[in-house]
């Protein structure tokens, strides 16, 4: 009898890129739901706009590049990029913000570099940073947590850029806790005074602490299902927490507590979902620790001394730059060799 030959190993694989992307998307559900609960319809609308744009841009680019379109779209990586970007956007930002961000993320940051697996930078964060430096004002349109604007107001804000008659943007939006801390500290206020404001919740920014807890839960599930590895999130949170802890101990009046840093802004989203993007992060176990630590430390530095209230996007992109070098110098010791790097 004649048979077909295949290369070993022959045991069927029970893992796939589709499965990984699907699980990451699933793990984002609690966080996204929590944000919707706090900030209203803007969150799902942004998600929809960004996802559709990302998928459309991916399909267009794949067709241009002569790659199989449907098979590749099904891997879910473009969808995930769109979703991650949307979750970073202000819920009341105009629609073209999500469109421009997704287009840049998919077309420039991903497909022009060769598509999935070849992008040196995290596409979602590249898109976000382009928006942040180009349209800083639009990215501040966060509603006050808990004061959810109704659907009509949200739609009006997103698609016309103005609140419906009778309202003002200022009445709808509110500076985020991170923004407030930066601004007020810059004006000479102390954290003690700030903490009495309604902006603060139990241990971090009001509302934001719940968002971060939800992302943390999703992230822990990803760790449990081995979709991501522990090194990057743990090192990033450790880096952020350690920097915040040391400076908070030195001067609690002007440096926010580690708890505030870990549970405000996009800390948990960044640690478990953004910094862990495998394509643009380090791949060696030790390298991943360095990468995470770097993201954490740079995030704290930008938050504390930089020009932006949140620093995760910049921190991730900066560490993306360093990833190949870190990987090169953190090769594990091969079995039977004396030193870490074989000669």
């Amino acid at each position, binding site marked *: 009898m004649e*048979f077909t*030959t295949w*290369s*070993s190993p022959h045991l069927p*694989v029970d*893992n796939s*890129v589709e499965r990984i992307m699907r699980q990451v998307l699933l793990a984002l559900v609690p966080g996204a739901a929590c944000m919707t609960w706090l900030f209203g319809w803007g969150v799902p609308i942004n998600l929809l706009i960004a996802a559709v744009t990302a998928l459309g841009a991916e399909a267009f680019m794949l067709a241009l590049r002569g790659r199989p379109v449907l098979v590749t779209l099904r891997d879910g990586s473009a969808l995930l990029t769109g979703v991650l970007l949307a979750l970073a956007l202000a819920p009341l930002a105009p629609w073209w913000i999500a469109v421009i961000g997704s287009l840049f993320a998919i077309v420039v940051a991903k497909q022009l570099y060769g598509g*999935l*697996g070849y992008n040196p930078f995290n596409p979602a964060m590249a898109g976000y940073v382009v928006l942040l430096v180009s349209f800083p004002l639009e990215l501040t349109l966060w509603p006050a947590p808990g004061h959810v604007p109704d659907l009509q107001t949200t739609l009006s804000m997103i698609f016309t850029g103005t609140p419906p008659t009778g309202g003002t943007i200022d009445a709808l939006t509110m500076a985020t806790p991170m923004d407030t801390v930066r601004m007020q500290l810059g004006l000479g206020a102390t954290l003690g005074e700030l903490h009495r404001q309604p902006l603060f919740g139990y241990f971090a920014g009001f509302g934001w602490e719940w968002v971060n807890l939800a992302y943390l839960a999703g992230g822990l599930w990803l760790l449990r299902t081995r979709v991501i590895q522990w090194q990057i999130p743990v090192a990033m949170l450790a880096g952020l927490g350690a920097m915040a802890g040391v400076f908070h101990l030195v001067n609690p009046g002007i440096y926010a507590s580690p708890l505030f840093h870990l549970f405000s802004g996009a800390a948990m989203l960044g640690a478990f979902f953004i910094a862990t993007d495998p394509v643009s992060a380090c791949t060696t176990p030790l390298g991943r620790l360095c990468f995470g630590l770097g993201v954490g430390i740079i995030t704290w530095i930008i938050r504390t001394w930089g020009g932006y209230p949140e620093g995760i996007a910049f921190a991730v992109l900066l560490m993306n730059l360093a990833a190949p070098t870190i990987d090169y110098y953190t090769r594990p010791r091969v079995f*039977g060799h004396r030193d870490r790097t074989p000669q």
Partner: protein
Amino acid sequence: MAETSRRPLPAIDPDFTRRYHFHGGLKLSGCREAASARPIRPAGLPDRLVLPLAQHIGEPSECLVGPGETVYRGQLLARALGRISAPVHASTSGTVVAVEARPVPHPSGLPAPCIVIETDGRDTPVPDAPPALDYLQSDVDTLLTRIRDAGIVGLGGAGFPTRAKLARRDAIELLLINGVECEPCIACDDALQRERAQEVIEGVRILQRIVQPAACVIALEDNMPKAEQALRAALAGGNETGIRVVNVPTVYPTGGERQLIRVLTGREVPSQGFPADIGIIVQNVGTAAAVYHAVARSRPLISRIVTVTGDGVRDACNMDVLLGTPVSHLIGAAGGYTGHIARLLIGGPMMGYAVNTDALPVSKTTNCVIAVTARSMPAPPPAKSCIRCGRCTEVCPANLLPQQLYWYARSGNQDAAQDFGLFDCIECGCCAHVCPSHIPLVQYYRHAKTTIWEQEKQKKKADIARARHEARLARLERIKHEREEKLARKKRAVADQGAGDAARQTAIQAALERVKTKKDQNGTAPRNTEDLTPEQQRQIEAVDRRRRERARRPREPD
């Protein structure tokens, strides 16, 4: 070059209480039960046996028989060539019908020289078989010679000649008998230990006598309780040589020599080195049993236990198979195929190779035959781009960075691939098994290794050619130099001769002078143009004139 570890080697605990970890590995769901449910059964006698001349690592053996010759069970058919080689014996009696290239169980699928025997069904033993040895009385050299002459090679899968593996016996601290199955699904070592524990133990005792190790341990997996029981029962009658039986966690690829050594002793075999470098010799349980048969029963290696399994065969089982039996015969003995077979594998599901025909013989290293339908092993999905997720790094037992290796292997950057430890890859397949992009990683590594070997071969050839060329240039230079020297010598000789000539000339001149003076004194004869008459003078002038005119006139055609 083998590297020596900078850290001192961990001492070998005589009780083997501790289990060390190696990086990575996989807990694979075993399919061993299917074959282990039944006792070992004989595969029976096929009509024809095909015995490849190369069933081991090293030089192929040299055929000693020709077509038409009658051979007997245990007769030497092909002798070992060199130290790393093994002889081949007739598995039963019959007639040699051909010595020709046939398909053999090898990943390449290329045919190789084989001896084909038509069996006569009488199974007549060879009359001048060597006597059985009482191993307790025999000296080590006799035992080693017997092992070599019996054609014993490592039966765990690699097929390294056992005699050669026993060559370095100085300062061996541990004789490690490997009863851990190499891969899931394979059950031949398990069956052997369960049913023929006594043979294994006797074989181990012979090996102990040869190696004289400080300690000796038989290792098996923690999911082989029956085998462990059988071994312990076999040792219960008396264990003067202190053989220990221990189990190790069932993590693939613990059956690998280097991984097993690490798990039991915490020592790492140096990269490109051998276990003997760190005072350890490893032998497979099947090899130990074969040693027992060769020494105490005077039976060379002519059969082995083969696991026949997979959802493509009706009755999965372990079989006692004569070497040279066609795989199709084994399948028949296991009840035949169940349906459409998607793959036929020789070896395990992780490192075995798929073959395109079942007309292949069982060789010394064939431990398992797996026939599967597309249901249990569907065609792999198309490969996608690597997303650098690092799952491969997590599971690599050699602690390599498989995704980096893949990157360099794919781009043909052989230097970087070697720098990242390409040759430390044991091709266990863990990385490819977990790859979410379904990249056939091992295939890339094999290709890169083969390319490098080929390049090195070419380089060696080029080196030889260069050396020859340089030798030729040197020779030409030398010849030229010698010629120049010879010429110079000759010139000098001629110059010397020239000086002699001058002297002779002077002598001749002097002699002529003397004659002339003598003639002058005597008066010499006048020349014939002197004292001419006027008539003669005119005639001469007329002749001269004519001659001059003729020279001036243009030459007329004849």
